[in-house]
């Protein structure tokens, strides 16, 4: 139901974003910009098209701009230039209540550091998104209980986040995002903070959900195995630039450059 299109996204951090944009377009290099103007280029002209119901993985090392890029999708970060189109609507133009409604109904997100509310128990955390968009208490409870069961947390409804293990906390984060039943789910390195065994377990949970649900999922990771295991298609970023897009098998068999090759090669 929801296509996502990133169109020529630039993101420059610093006071003089727009001036830097000019310089960058005129061909000044990133390195020069950092040395001369103390400006960091986070995203350098990235365009991507993610199809409806696709499980799309964005991969790159830390500092490659992957987390920055996906935060453009729900307006947590505004681009210096470029557009983000969701169903042909430009997210970067949304303001105030429009933006709140977009976040409440269109996109939900799972975070690397979980971002759970420490003063609320599991149940309250899971229906947080429903509550702030004004759904009734019964509705909240009904949906929350359903998703708690789906992620396998039944019996922990009254526990507080600090009482749970990391894996369980991320199940709460996942249930919270799923409970809002949005078309698009963004997962920002959701399993990076977990132990390898638990990570594998969570990946299986995710795969299971992928089968059951019709959702557009954008999944960020720095782990190639994880990317290959989960992705329909994937993109590789380096230093804020898009290097290669394709299905996992395309990328493994036909790496675009040395950088990608070093990833893939190491894996073999």
């Amino acid at each position, binding site marked *: 139901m929801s296509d996502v299109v990133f169109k020529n996204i630039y993101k420059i951090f610093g006071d003089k974003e727009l001036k830097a944009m000019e310089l960058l377009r005129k061909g000044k290099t990133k390195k020069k910009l950092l040395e001369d103007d103390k400006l960091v280029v986070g995203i350098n002209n990235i365009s991507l098209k993610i199809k409806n119901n696709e499980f799309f993985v964005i991969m790159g090392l830390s500092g490659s701009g992957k987390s920055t890029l996906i935060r453009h999708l729900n307006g947590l970060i505004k681009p210096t230039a470029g557009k983000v189109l969701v169903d042909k609507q430009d997210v970067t133009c949304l303001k105030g209540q429009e933006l709140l409604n977009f976040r409440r109904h269109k996109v939900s*997100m799972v*975070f690397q550091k979980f971002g759970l509310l420490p003063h609320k128990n599991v149940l309250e955390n899971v229906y947080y998104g429903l509550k702030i968009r004004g759904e009734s208490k019964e509705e909240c409870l009904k949906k929350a209980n359903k998703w708690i069961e789906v992620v396998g947390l039944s019996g922990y409804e009254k526990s507080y986040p600090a009482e749970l293990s990391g894996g369980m906390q991320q199940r709460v984060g996942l249930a919270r995002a799923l409970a809002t039943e949005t078309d698009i789910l963004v997962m920002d390195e959701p399993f990076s903070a977990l132990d390898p065994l638990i990570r594998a377990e969570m990946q299986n949970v995710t795969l299971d959900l992928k089968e059951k649900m019709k959702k557009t999922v954008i999944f960020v990771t720095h782990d190639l195995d994880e990317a290959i295991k989960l992705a329909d298609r994937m993109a590789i970023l380096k230093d804020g630039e898009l290097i290669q897009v394709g299905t996992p098998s395309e990328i493994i068999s036909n790496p675009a450059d040395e950088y990608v090759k070093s990833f893939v090669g190491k894996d073999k």
Partner: protein
Amino acid sequence: MASFLLEKGYGCEVDVIPGTTTPLLTALGSGDIDILMEVWKDNFKDAWEKFEEQGKVIDAGVNFPDAIQGFYVPSYMIHGDVKRNIKPMAPDLKEVKDLIKYKNLFTDPEEPNKGRFLNCILGWSCESVNTKKFYAYGLDKHFTNFRPGTGAALAAAIASKYERGEPFLAYYWGPTWVLGKYDLTQVKEPAYDPQIWSELEKSERPNRATAYPVVKVYIGVNTQFAEKNPLVMDFLNSYQTSNQQISQALSYMQENEERTPKDAALNFLKKNENIWERWLDDEAVEKVELALQLQKSKKKKWKLDIGKPINNAVSWIVKNYGQSFKNASRPMLKLIIVMEQLFKFFPWWGVTLIFCLLSLLTGHRTLPLIIGVCLGGIKLLGMWSLAIQTLSLMIISTFIAAFLGFILGILNARFAQLRKLMLPFLDAMQTMPSFVYLIPALMLFGLGKVPAVFATVIYAIVPMIRLTDLGIRKVDPHVIEAAKSFGANYFQLLFGVRITLALPTIMAGINQTTMMALSMVVIASMIGARGLGEQVLLGIQKLDVGKGFTAGLAIVLLAISLDRLTQAFGRKLDGRGQL
């Protein structure tokens, strides 16, 4: 004044040495100094008479014959003041017994069925004499005995009432700048009678009283110097001023901090030639006149003078908006009084029980015991009713400071620019010696509990602002981002996430604010906030260490109870957040 006349009229070389009475008197006897312009014979009878008998000193007559003390009302109360459009409020007020009839004019806002008498400074001997007098005159049932903590507080209270043209009844003495600057009328007491006076001094509950004796202040001269200098002796013998003249000269100095005693003397000499002409021989008069004409006005040294504009601003506000401030303070005063009455309504163990029950809510097991012991200790020290006064003031101040500080803290956390702007003010509020704003608070709100609350709020609000700000800013950004991503709006973020997660820090702020409010309420007793602080002050000014310590201990016990209680609540919130 005398030194100028001696220098210019008689060509003497004069050295002026200021000092306290006993050393100066001794120096006069030994001839180290020749003339002592103020000898308070009545106050130092024994020392003076001893030197006189030994032939070391003689007096050169009276300097001023009428050093006075007594009960004063502003003259405009009796005669009105056409210029300031004040009508006579008490045209028949002459003697102390008339005061009862007019007590409603002096209404004490803290006890509205009585008038307020501004007594002498807490702990001075005049304070207890006045208290006895009020008992003897039967005025104690009609007037509250209000004891200012310092001389500055009493003078400021008189000044602010006078500027506004309000009635007041105060003890004061002269010669002083207050009597020089303001037109006050003494309320007549029965004429001084030594017999009654000595009764008054001995008895705690005298049945009659008498006016303060009018004291003559003499000029003392070293005998040898007097024999050698008959011309000077003639001058000194004719030299005579009065309480009023000295007071006016003192007030001339008070009006402008740059005016020295010499300026005041010259000002007096220029304006009162007819007075000092009589003290000198004709030749000397001519010389002095010439010298006066030659006196140049002083060159002004440039300096950054913020004192004068501040004084002007304060007195302008007092004059024009004083009444509005007073009106605004009335509900506050009512709140304080209701709070006190509420506490007094319960017996001491009732209040203690309430606090213990409150502490049970924190889930802390030993806390009720600690609080019970502390509050019981205060009762045991006999400080309960005073502690209640302090506690009521403190609770109200803390409540206001916490509320305002909370809001300002939220704003500071939101607007970095505002935080930068406020930072120096917060520093100033915490470090500026509190007396500096106690006095203006007093001039705006009058003596008593309201300015105490005002000053306490200023002092105690700072940690609340800082910790609320800090608590909100240090909330885990990941949690905030997550809440944002689900579409939380500004208020859902602020109240549902930021403030909730900052609560332990905010509780620490409340704890700090409570403690600072308690310490400030003690200091505020200097402007008449009463309570435990007044006992501490009394102990200090009377050198009664035991009394000061007892009250101090009661303050410590109160502080421990409140500190543990607020901390326990903080920990409870903390526990909920972390688990």
